[in-house]
Protein backbone atom coordinates (compact mmCIF):
# COMPACT_ATOMS: atom_id res chain seq x y z
CA UNK A 1 0.00 0.00 0.00
CA UNK A 2 2.91 2.24 0.59
CA UNK A 3 4.82 1.71 -2.60
CA UNK A 4 2.61 2.87 -5.47
CA UNK A 5 3.04 6.63 -5.03
CA UNK A 6 6.63 6.28 -6.01
CA UNK A 7 6.13 5.29 -9.59
CA UNK A 8 3.42 7.84 -10.25
CA UNK A 9 5.01 11.07 -9.22
CA UNK A 10 8.65 10.79 -10.02
CA UNK A 11 8.77 14.20 -11.63
CA UNK A 12 7.02 15.86 -8.73
CA UNK A 13 9.35 14.14 -6.33
CA UNK A 14 12.36 15.52 -8.09
CA UNK A 15 10.83 18.94 -7.84
CA UNK A 16 10.12 18.64 -4.12
CA UNK A 17 13.50 17.30 -3.12
CA UNK A 18 15.44 19.96 -4.96
CA UNK A 19 14.62 22.41 -2.18
CA UNK A 20 15.74 22.35 1.45
CA UNK A 21 15.17 19.01 3.07
CA UNK A 22 13.45 18.92 6.42
CA UNK A 23 14.26 15.87 8.41
CA UNK A 24 12.35 14.02 11.08
CA UNK A 25 14.31 11.67 13.26
CA UNK A 26 12.81 8.49 14.60
CA UNK A 27 14.94 6.58 17.09
CA UNK A 28 13.79 3.02 17.53
CA UNK A 29 15.31 0.62 20.01
CA UNK A 30 18.77 1.95 19.47
CA UNK A 31 21.84 2.36 21.60
CA UNK A 32 21.74 6.17 21.17
CA UNK A 33 25.00 6.41 19.36
CA UNK A 34 23.26 6.89 16.07
CA UNK A 35 20.94 9.45 17.66
CA UNK A 36 23.87 11.39 19.04
CA UNK A 37 25.70 11.35 15.76
CA UNK A 38 22.61 12.67 14.04
CA UNK A 39 22.43 15.52 16.55
CA UNK A 40 26.14 15.99 16.14
CA UNK A 41 25.56 16.75 12.48
CA UNK A 42 23.79 19.94 13.56
CA UNK A 43 26.61 21.25 15.70
CA UNK A 44 29.33 23.63 14.51
CA UNK A 45 31.88 21.12 13.24
CA UNK A 46 29.49 19.51 10.76
CA UNK A 47 26.72 22.05 10.48
CA UNK A 48 24.15 20.20 8.46
CA UNK A 49 22.04 23.31 8.18
CA UNK A 50 24.34 24.81 5.61
CA UNK A 51 22.73 22.43 3.12
CA UNK A 52 19.32 23.66 4.13
CA UNK A 53 18.79 20.42 5.99
CA UNK A 54 16.98 20.90 9.25
CA UNK A 55 15.65 18.63 11.97
CA UNK A 56 11.97 19.29 12.57
CA UNK A 57 9.77 18.37 15.49
CA UNK A 58 6.82 16.99 13.60
CA UNK A 59 6.60 14.38 10.89
CA UNK A 60 4.00 16.52 9.12
CA UNK A 61 6.69 19.04 8.25
CA UNK A 62 9.22 16.51 7.08
CA UNK A 63 10.58 15.55 3.67
CA UNK A 64 12.89 12.91 5.04
CA UNK A 65 12.35 10.32 7.74
CA UNK A 66 15.58 9.16 9.37
CA UNK A 67 15.14 5.86 11.14
CA UNK A 68 17.81 4.44 13.34
CA UNK A 69 17.95 1.60 15.80
CA UNK A 70 16.44 -1.83 15.58
CA UNK A 71 12.68 -1.76 15.60
CA UNK A 72 11.07 -3.72 18.41
CA UNK A 73 7.48 -4.79 18.63
CA UNK A 74 6.46 -1.72 20.53
CA UNK A 75 8.13 0.68 18.10
CA UNK A 76 6.75 -1.03 15.04
CA UNK A 77 3.20 0.30 15.16
CA UNK A 78 4.42 3.78 15.94
CA UNK A 79 6.75 3.75 13.00
CA UNK A 80 3.93 2.64 10.71
CA UNK A 81 1.69 5.35 12.08
CA UNK A 82 4.32 8.01 11.56
CA UNK A 83 4.83 6.82 8.03
CA UNK A 84 1.13 7.13 7.34
CA UNK A 85 1.00 10.63 8.84
CA UNK A 86 3.93 11.86 6.78
CA UNK A 87 3.24 13.99 3.72
CA UNK A 88 4.24 12.18 0.56
CA UNK A 89 6.56 12.05 -1.26
CA UNK A 90 8.81 11.09 1.58
CA UNK A 91 12.34 9.84 1.60
CA UNK A 92 13.12 7.20 4.19
CA UNK A 93 16.70 6.73 5.30
CA UNK A 94 17.76 3.82 7.47
CA UNK A 95 20.75 4.72 9.59
CA UNK A 96 23.25 2.43 11.19
CA UNK A 97 23.69 -1.29 11.25
CA UNK A 98 20.55 -1.56 13.34
CA UNK A 99 18.43 0.43 10.93
CA UNK A 100 19.75 -1.41 7.89
CA UNK A 101 19.57 -5.00 9.12
CA UNK A 102 18.87 -5.10 12.83
CA UNK A 103 22.56 -5.36 13.53
CA UNK A 104 23.57 -6.97 16.76
CA UNK A 105 19.98 -6.96 18.00
CA UNK A 106 18.52 -8.87 15.06
CA UNK A 107 18.45 -12.06 17.12
CA UNK A 108 16.77 -10.36 20.05
CA UNK A 109 13.48 -11.65 21.39
CA UNK A 110 11.65 -8.40 20.76
CA UNK A 111 12.98 -7.67 17.29
CA UNK A 112 10.20 -6.86 14.83
CA UNK A 113 12.17 -6.67 11.62
CA UNK A 114 14.60 -4.27 10.04
CA UNK A 115 13.16 -0.97 8.85
CA UNK A 116 12.78 -2.07 5.23
CA UNK A 117 10.47 -4.93 6.24
CA UNK A 118 8.13 -2.39 7.80
CA UNK A 119 8.21 0.65 5.51
CA UNK A 120 9.88 1.25 2.14
CA UNK A 121 13.41 2.58 2.51
CA UNK A 122 15.14 4.82 -0.04
CA UNK A 123 18.65 4.82 1.31
CA UNK A 124 20.83 3.00 3.77
CA UNK A 125 23.68 4.56 5.70
CA UNK A 126 25.58 1.71 7.29
CA UNK A 127 27.99 1.98 10.18
CA UNK A 128 27.84 1.45 13.89
CA UNK A 129 27.44 4.33 14.34
CA UNK A 130 27.93 5.98 10.94
CA UNK A 131 30.13 9.03 11.16
CA UNK A 132 28.42 12.40 10.82
CA UNK A 133 30.26 12.81 7.54
CA UNK A 134 28.62 9.65 6.27
CA UNK A 135 25.19 10.78 7.38
CA UNK A 136 25.60 14.16 5.72
CA UNK A 137 26.95 12.59 2.55
CA UNK A 138 24.07 10.15 2.45
CA UNK A 139 21.34 12.70 2.93
CA UNK A 140 22.91 15.26 0.64
CA UNK A 141 23.41 12.72 -2.12
CA UNK A 142 19.81 11.71 -1.75
CA UNK A 143 18.90 15.30 -2.39
CA UNK A 144 20.84 15.10 -5.61
CA UNK A 145 23.57 17.43 -4.57
CA UNK A 146 27.28 17.03 -4.80
CA UNK A 147 28.84 16.90 -1.35
Amino acid at each position, binding site marked *: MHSDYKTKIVGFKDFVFRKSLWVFHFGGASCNNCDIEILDCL*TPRHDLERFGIMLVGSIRHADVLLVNGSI*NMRDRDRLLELYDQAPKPLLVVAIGACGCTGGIFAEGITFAGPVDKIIPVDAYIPGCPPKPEAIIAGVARLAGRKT
Partner: protein
Amino acid sequence: MGRKTLIPIGPYHPLQEEPELFKLYCDGEIVTDIKWETGYNHRGIEKLSESKTYDQVFFLVERICGICSTSHPFAFANAVEEIAGVEIPDRAKYIRTVIGELERIHSHLLWVGLAGHFLGYNTVFMWAWKYREPVLDLFEMITGNRNSYAMFKVGGVRRDIENHKIPAIRKEMSVIRKKIDLLTGAVMDDPVIHARTKGVGVLTKQDIIDYAAVGPTARASGIATDIRKDDPYAAYPLVNWKVITAQEGDVFAKAEVRLLEMYESVSIIEQCIDALEKLKEGDVSLKINEIPAGIGMGRAEAPRGEVFHFVVSDGSNSPARHKIRAPSYTNIATFRKSCIGQTIADATLSLAAVDPCYCCTERMAAVYDNSTGERILNAGELIKLSLERTKEIRKSVAGHE
Protein backbone atom coordinates in the same frame (compact mmCIF):
# COMPACT_ATOMS: atom_id res chain seq x y z
CA MET B 1 -9.52 26.10 34.11
CA GLY B 2 -9.88 22.95 36.13
CA ARG B 3 -8.98 20.88 33.11
CA LYS B 4 -6.11 18.55 33.63
CA THR B 5 -3.40 18.61 31.05
CA LEU B 6 -1.34 15.61 30.17
CA ILE B 7 2.12 16.18 28.82
CA PRO B 8 3.91 13.17 27.48
CA ILE B 9 7.68 13.30 27.33
CA GLY B 10 8.91 10.56 25.10
CA PRO B 11 8.44 7.74 24.36
CA TYR B 12 11.83 7.77 22.76
CA HIS B 13 14.55 8.94 25.06
CA PRO B 14 17.60 8.21 23.06
CA LEU B 15 20.16 9.21 25.64
CA GLN B 16 19.05 6.85 28.33
CA GLU B 17 19.60 3.20 28.83
CA GLU B 18 15.89 2.80 29.18
CA PRO B 19 13.76 5.01 26.94
CA GLU B 20 10.56 5.88 28.66
CA LEU B 21 7.36 7.70 28.15
CA PHE B 22 6.91 10.25 30.91
CA LYS B 23 3.47 11.58 31.50
CA LEU B 24 3.26 14.82 33.39
CA TYR B 25 -0.21 15.49 34.74
CA CYS B 26 -0.67 19.19 35.23
CA ASP B 27 -3.19 21.42 36.84
CA GLY B 28 -2.69 24.75 35.15
CA GLU B 29 1.02 25.31 35.35
CA ILE B 30 1.71 23.01 38.24
CA VAL B 31 2.73 19.39 37.80
CA THR B 32 0.55 17.27 40.02
CA ASP B 33 1.64 13.78 39.10
CA ILE B 34 4.15 12.00 36.97
CA LYS B 35 4.02 8.52 35.49
CA TRP B 36 6.32 6.64 33.23
CA GLU B 37 6.19 3.70 30.89
CA THR B 38 9.06 1.65 29.63
CA GLY B 39 9.66 -0.94 26.96
CA TYR B 40 10.20 1.11 23.85
CA ASN B 41 13.84 0.26 23.80
CA HIS B 42 13.70 -3.30 25.02
CA ARG B 43 16.08 -5.31 22.97
CA GLY B 44 16.43 -8.43 25.07
CA ILE B 45 20.09 -7.83 25.76
CA GLU B 46 20.37 -10.05 28.80
CA LYS B 47 18.92 -12.94 26.83
CA LEU B 48 21.05 -12.19 23.78
CA SER B 49 24.09 -12.17 25.98
CA GLU B 50 23.53 -15.79 26.91
CA SER B 51 23.88 -16.76 23.28
CA LYS B 52 27.19 -15.00 22.77
CA THR B 53 30.70 -15.90 23.82
CA TYR B 54 32.48 -13.85 26.45
CA ASP B 55 34.45 -12.11 23.73
CA GLN B 56 31.31 -11.19 21.82
CA VAL B 57 29.38 -10.00 24.85
CA PHE B 58 31.68 -7.00 25.07
CA PHE B 59 30.43 -5.76 21.73
CA LEU B 60 26.87 -6.32 22.86
CA VAL B 61 27.09 -4.55 26.23
CA GLU B 62 28.86 -1.68 24.55
CA ARG B 63 25.67 -1.19 22.58
CA ILE B 64 23.39 -0.99 25.59
CA CYS B 65 24.03 2.72 25.68
CA GLY B 66 26.05 4.68 23.24
CA ILE B 67 27.16 7.29 25.74
CA CYS B 68 28.14 4.82 28.40
CA SER B 69 29.80 2.59 25.89
CA THR B 70 32.77 2.14 28.19
CA SER B 71 30.98 1.77 31.48
CA HIS B 72 29.07 -1.36 30.56
CA PRO B 73 32.08 -3.25 29.20
CA PHE B 74 33.98 -1.98 32.24
CA ALA B 75 31.49 -3.47 34.66
CA PHE B 76 31.19 -6.67 32.63
CA ALA B 77 34.97 -7.05 32.53
CA ASN B 78 35.12 -6.54 36.29
CA ALA B 79 32.48 -9.24 36.75
CA VAL B 80 34.12 -11.79 34.47
CA GLU B 81 37.56 -11.11 35.86
CA GLU B 82 36.17 -11.72 39.32
CA ILE B 83 35.00 -15.16 38.17
CA ALA B 84 38.31 -15.91 36.49
CA GLY B 85 40.20 -14.53 39.48
CA VAL B 86 42.72 -12.61 37.40
CA GLU B 87 44.49 -9.31 37.92
CA ILE B 88 45.07 -7.45 34.65
CA PRO B 89 48.41 -5.82 33.80
CA ASP B 90 48.99 -2.29 35.04
CA ARG B 91 49.21 -0.87 31.56
CA ALA B 92 45.76 -2.23 30.75
CA LYS B 93 44.41 -0.71 33.96
CA TYR B 94 45.68 2.72 33.00
CA ILE B 95 44.35 2.43 29.47
CA ARG B 96 40.93 1.40 30.74
CA THR B 97 40.93 4.38 33.07
CA VAL B 98 41.89 6.78 30.31
CA ILE B 99 39.05 5.55 28.14
CA GLY B 100 36.59 5.67 31.03
CA GLU B 101 37.47 9.23 31.92
CA LEU B 102 37.48 10.46 28.34
CA GLU B 103 33.98 9.08 28.15
CA ARG B 104 32.98 10.97 31.27
CA ILE B 105 34.21 14.23 29.76
CA HIS B 106 32.33 13.73 26.52
CA SER B 107 29.18 12.66 28.32
CA HIS B 108 29.21 15.62 30.71
CA LEU B 109 29.87 18.04 27.88
CA LEU B 110 26.96 16.54 26.04
CA TRP B 111 24.77 17.05 29.08
CA VAL B 112 25.86 20.65 29.55
CA GLY B 113 25.01 21.29 25.93
CA LEU B 114 21.57 19.76 26.15
CA ALA B 115 20.79 21.54 29.41
CA GLY B 116 21.83 24.80 27.79
CA HIS B 117 19.63 24.08 24.82
CA PHE B 118 16.71 23.52 27.06
CA LEU B 119 17.26 26.72 28.98
CA GLY B 120 17.13 28.57 25.71
CA TYR B 121 20.87 29.06 25.54
CA ASN B 122 21.53 27.48 22.22
CA THR B 123 24.98 28.99 22.17
CA VAL B 124 25.92 26.82 25.13
CA PHE B 125 24.59 23.81 23.25
CA MET B 126 26.65 24.57 20.18
CA TRP B 127 29.80 25.39 22.10
CA ALA B 128 29.67 22.43 24.43
CA TRP B 129 29.19 20.08 21.49
CA LYS B 130 31.95 21.81 19.61
CA TYR B 131 34.31 21.21 22.52
CA ARG B 132 33.18 17.63 22.62
CA GLU B 133 34.49 16.99 19.12
CA PRO B 134 38.20 17.00 20.10
CA VAL B 135 37.41 14.32 22.70
CA LEU B 136 35.82 12.20 20.01
CA ASP B 137 38.85 12.80 17.81
CA LEU B 138 41.03 11.47 20.62
CA PHE B 139 38.82 8.40 20.77
CA GLU B 140 39.18 7.95 17.06
CA MET B 141 42.94 8.18 17.36
CA ILE B 142 43.16 5.75 20.25
CA THR B 143 40.47 3.22 19.42
CA GLY B 144 39.63 3.73 15.77
CA ASN B 145 36.02 4.78 16.32
CA ARG B 146 34.30 7.89 17.60
CA ASN B 147 31.85 5.94 19.72
CA SER B 148 31.62 2.23 20.57
CA TYR B 149 35.31 1.83 21.14
CA ALA B 150 35.63 -1.97 21.32
CA MET B 151 38.60 -1.58 23.64
CA PHE B 152 37.77 -4.05 26.35
CA LYS B 153 38.25 -7.77 26.57
CA VAL B 154 38.54 -10.26 29.36
CA GLY B 155 42.00 -9.85 30.83
CA GLY B 156 42.90 -6.47 29.42
CA VAL B 157 42.34 -4.23 26.45
CA ARG B 158 42.40 -4.88 22.73
CA ARG B 159 44.68 -2.06 21.70
CA ASP B 160 47.58 -0.35 23.29
CA ILE B 161 47.89 3.42 23.55
CA GLU B 162 51.34 3.64 22.01
CA ASN B 163 53.71 6.05 23.67
CA HIS B 164 54.05 8.19 20.57
CA LYS B 165 50.38 9.07 20.84
CA ILE B 166 50.71 10.37 24.37
CA PRO B 167 51.99 13.89 23.59
CA ALA B 168 48.91 14.47 21.44
CA ILE B 169 46.64 13.38 24.29
CA ARG B 170 48.48 15.61 26.75
CA LYS B 171 48.18 18.59 24.46
CA GLU B 172 44.49 17.99 23.94
CA MET B 173 43.93 17.74 27.69
CA SER B 174 45.37 21.20 28.29
CA VAL B 175 43.16 22.58 25.54
CA ILE B 176 40.10 20.88 26.98
CA ARG B 177 40.86 22.23 30.44
CA LYS B 178 40.73 25.76 29.05
CA LYS B 179 37.46 25.04 27.30
CA ILE B 180 35.95 23.72 30.52
CA ASP B 181 37.14 26.90 32.27
CA LEU B 182 35.25 28.87 29.70
CA LEU B 183 32.07 26.84 30.04
CA THR B 184 32.22 26.78 33.81
CA GLY B 185 32.68 30.54 33.87
CA ALA B 186 29.75 31.02 31.55
CA VAL B 187 27.45 28.82 33.62
CA MET B 188 28.53 29.79 37.12
CA ASP B 189 28.43 33.55 36.61
CA ASP B 190 25.26 33.87 34.62
CA PRO B 191 22.48 35.43 36.70
CA VAL B 192 19.80 34.03 34.42
CA ILE B 193 21.06 30.49 34.79
CA HIS B 194 21.18 31.02 38.54
CA ALA B 195 17.58 32.21 38.55
CA ARG B 196 16.41 29.30 36.40
CA THR B 197 18.24 26.49 38.17
CA LYS B 198 18.73 27.42 41.83
CA GLY B 199 16.17 25.90 44.13
CA VAL B 200 14.61 23.98 41.23
CA GLY B 201 14.07 20.24 41.38
CA VAL B 202 15.60 19.95 44.84
CA LEU B 203 16.40 16.46 46.10
CA THR B 204 17.33 16.31 49.77
CA LYS B 205 19.82 13.89 51.21
CA GLN B 206 16.95 11.81 52.57
CA ASP B 207 15.30 11.65 49.13
CA ILE B 208 18.49 10.31 47.64
CA ILE B 209 18.69 7.63 50.32
CA ASP B 210 15.01 6.76 49.94
CA TYR B 211 15.21 6.41 46.19
CA ALA B 212 18.75 4.97 46.17
CA ALA B 213 19.83 7.46 43.53
CA VAL B 214 23.40 7.24 42.31
CA GLY B 215 26.03 9.21 40.47
CA PRO B 216 26.06 12.99 40.06
CA THR B 217 22.40 13.07 41.09
CA ALA B 218 23.35 11.79 44.54
CA ARG B 219 26.60 13.70 44.76
CA ALA B 220 24.78 16.98 44.12
CA SER B 221 22.77 16.34 47.29
CA GLY B 222 25.78 15.89 49.48
CA ILE B 223 26.18 12.12 49.32
CA ALA B 224 29.71 11.22 48.35
CA THR B 225 28.96 7.98 46.58
CA ASP B 226 31.31 7.05 43.80
CA ILE B 227 32.14 3.49 42.83
CA ARG B 228 35.58 4.60 41.77
CA LYS B 229 36.28 5.32 45.45
CA ASP B 230 33.88 2.94 47.20
CA ASP B 231 34.82 -0.19 45.29
CA PRO B 232 38.04 0.76 43.50
CA TYR B 233 38.75 -0.86 40.18
CA ALA B 234 41.21 -0.37 37.32
CA ALA B 235 43.72 2.40 37.99
CA TYR B 236 41.51 4.61 40.16
CA PRO B 237 43.26 3.64 43.42
CA LEU B 238 46.62 4.38 41.77
CA VAL B 239 45.92 8.02 40.92
CA ASN B 240 45.02 11.08 42.95
CA TRP B 241 41.57 12.53 42.62
CA LYS B 242 38.65 13.54 44.75
CA VAL B 243 34.92 12.98 44.75
CA ILE B 244 33.06 16.17 43.89
CA THR B 245 29.96 16.89 45.92
CA ALA B 246 27.59 19.77 46.40
CA GLN B 247 25.02 20.28 49.11
CA GLU B 248 22.01 21.98 47.58
CA GLY B 249 20.56 19.14 45.51
CA ASP B 250 19.03 21.48 42.95
CA VAL B 251 19.61 21.63 39.21
CA PHE B 252 22.41 24.13 39.65
CA ALA B 253 24.25 21.82 42.03
CA LYS B 254 23.97 18.99 39.55
CA ALA B 255 25.46 21.16 36.83
CA GLU B 256 28.20 22.27 39.19
CA VAL B 257 29.10 18.70 40.13
CA ARG B 258 29.32 17.68 36.51
CA LEU B 259 31.41 20.66 35.48
CA LEU B 260 33.87 20.20 38.33
CA GLU B 261 34.03 16.47 37.72
CA MET B 262 35.40 17.15 34.27
CA TYR B 263 38.46 18.78 35.84
CA GLU B 264 39.00 15.66 37.92
CA SER B 265 38.70 13.53 34.80
CA VAL B 266 41.27 15.64 33.00
CA SER B 267 43.64 15.32 35.91
CA ILE B 268 43.10 11.54 36.14
CA ILE B 269 43.87 11.20 32.44
CA GLU B 270 47.02 13.26 32.79
CA GLN B 271 48.26 11.12 35.65
CA CYS B 272 47.43 7.95 33.72
CA ILE B 273 49.32 8.96 30.61
CA ASP B 274 52.29 9.97 32.74
CA ALA B 275 52.24 6.49 34.23
CA LEU B 276 51.79 4.88 30.80
CA GLU B 277 54.95 6.51 29.55
CA LYS B 278 56.92 4.73 32.23
CA LEU B 279 55.45 1.28 31.56
CA LYS B 280 56.52 -1.15 28.87
CA GLU B 281 54.55 -0.87 25.64
CA GLY B 282 52.50 -3.78 24.44
CA ASP B 283 51.82 -5.48 27.75
CA VAL B 284 48.09 -4.89 27.67
CA SER B 285 46.33 -8.20 28.09
CA LEU B 286 46.45 -11.60 29.65
CA LYS B 287 45.67 -14.74 27.78
CA ILE B 288 42.73 -16.33 29.46
CA ASN B 289 41.82 -19.74 28.20
CA GLU B 290 38.76 -20.55 30.18
CA ILE B 291 36.29 -18.99 32.52
CA PRO B 292 35.55 -21.35 35.42
CA ALA B 293 32.08 -21.89 36.81
CA GLY B 294 31.08 -19.30 39.36
CA ILE B 295 29.39 -15.97 39.88
CA GLY B 296 30.87 -12.55 39.46
CA MET B 297 29.75 -9.03 40.23
CA GLY B 298 31.16 -6.05 38.48
CA ARG B 299 30.56 -2.42 39.20
CA ALA B 300 31.72 0.69 37.44
CA GLU B 301 31.01 4.38 37.78
CA ALA B 302 29.36 5.52 34.58
CA PRO B 303 28.96 9.24 33.91
CA ARG B 304 25.46 8.91 35.36
CA GLY B 305 26.18 6.64 38.30
CA GLU B 306 26.75 3.06 39.18
CA VAL B 307 26.53 0.38 36.51
CA PHE B 308 26.13 -3.09 37.90
CA HIS B 309 26.68 -6.36 36.07
CA PHE B 310 26.06 -9.78 37.52
CA VAL B 311 27.32 -12.79 35.61
CA VAL B 312 26.79 -16.48 36.28
CA SER B 313 29.19 -18.80 34.53
CA ASP B 314 28.67 -22.53 34.16
CA GLY B 315 32.16 -23.08 32.82
CA SER B 316 31.12 -22.87 29.16
CA ASN B 317 32.22 -20.12 26.83
CA SER B 318 29.16 -17.94 27.27
CA PRO B 319 27.43 -16.54 30.34
CA ALA B 320 24.68 -18.71 31.81
CA ARG B 321 22.96 -15.64 33.21
CA HIS B 322 23.76 -12.00 32.83
CA LYS B 323 21.95 -9.31 34.79
CA ILE B 324 22.48 -5.63 34.14
CA ARG B 325 21.42 -2.62 36.15
CA ALA B 326 22.05 0.83 34.78
CA PRO B 327 22.12 4.01 36.87
CA SER B 328 19.08 5.66 35.29
CA TYR B 329 16.99 2.83 36.65
CA THR B 330 17.13 4.31 40.14
CA ASN B 331 17.67 7.92 39.19
CA ILE B 332 14.46 8.09 37.21
CA ALA B 333 12.35 7.30 40.23
CA THR B 334 13.52 10.55 41.84
CA PHE B 335 11.38 12.45 39.33
CA ARG B 336 8.43 11.93 41.62
CA LYS B 337 10.22 13.97 44.24
CA SER B 338 11.85 16.59 42.05
CA CYS B 339 8.99 17.34 39.66
CA ILE B 340 5.71 17.18 41.53
CA GLY B 341 4.66 20.63 42.68
CA GLN B 342 6.87 22.44 40.21
CA THR B 343 5.78 24.48 37.23
CA ILE B 344 6.00 22.71 33.89
CA ALA B 345 8.91 24.79 32.71
CA ASP B 346 10.87 23.88 35.82
CA ALA B 347 9.81 20.26 35.85
CA THR B 348 11.20 19.68 32.40
CA LEU B 349 14.46 21.17 33.60
CA SER B 350 14.49 18.87 36.61
CA LEU B 351 14.05 15.94 34.29
CA ALA B 352 17.04 17.12 32.30
CA ALA B 353 19.14 17.48 35.42
CA VAL B 354 19.19 13.76 35.98
CA ASP B 355 20.56 13.49 32.45
CA PRO B 356 17.97 12.04 30.20
CA CYS B 357 17.85 13.43 26.72
CA TYR B 358 15.62 15.91 25.09
CA CYS B 359 15.86 14.46 21.67
CA CYS B 360 12.68 12.91 22.84
CA THR B 361 11.02 16.25 22.63
CA GLU B 362 11.50 16.17 18.91
CA ARG B 363 9.20 13.25 18.73
CA MET B 364 6.14 14.44 20.54
CA ALA B 365 2.86 15.19 18.85
CA ALA B 366 -0.02 17.41 19.91
CA VAL B 367 -3.04 15.25 20.50
CA TYR B 368 -6.42 15.77 22.09
CA ASP B 369 -7.75 12.78 23.89
CA ASN B 370 -11.41 12.70 22.91
CA SER B 371 -12.68 10.62 25.75
CA THR B 372 -11.24 12.64 28.61
CA GLY B 373 -10.71 15.97 26.95
CA GLU B 374 -7.13 15.89 28.16
CA ARG B 375 -4.97 18.12 26.10
CA ILE B 376 -1.51 16.95 25.28
CA LEU B 377 1.11 19.60 24.70
CA ASN B 378 3.73 19.10 22.04
CA ALA B 379 7.47 19.49 22.05
CA GLY B 380 7.53 22.95 20.59
CA GLU B 381 5.12 24.31 23.18
CA LEU B 382 7.09 22.74 25.96
CA ILE B 383 10.35 24.27 24.87
CA LYS B 384 8.59 27.56 24.25
CA LEU B 385 7.37 27.58 27.85
CA SER B 386 10.89 27.13 29.08
CA LEU B 387 12.26 29.74 26.72
CA GLU B 388 9.66 32.29 27.76
CA ARG B 389 10.49 31.73 31.35
CA THR B 390 14.19 32.38 30.70
CA LYS B 391 13.31 35.46 28.71
CA GLU B 392 11.22 36.86 31.54
CA ILE B 393 14.00 36.29 34.02
CA ARG B 394 16.53 37.75 31.67
CA LYS B 395 14.37 40.83 31.37
CA SER B 396 14.00 41.26 35.09
CA VAL B 397 17.70 40.64 35.68
CA ALA B 398 18.92 43.05 33.07
CA GLY B 399 16.07 45.51 33.46
CA HIS B 400 15.46 45.36 29.73
CA GLU B 401 15.34 42.82 26.94
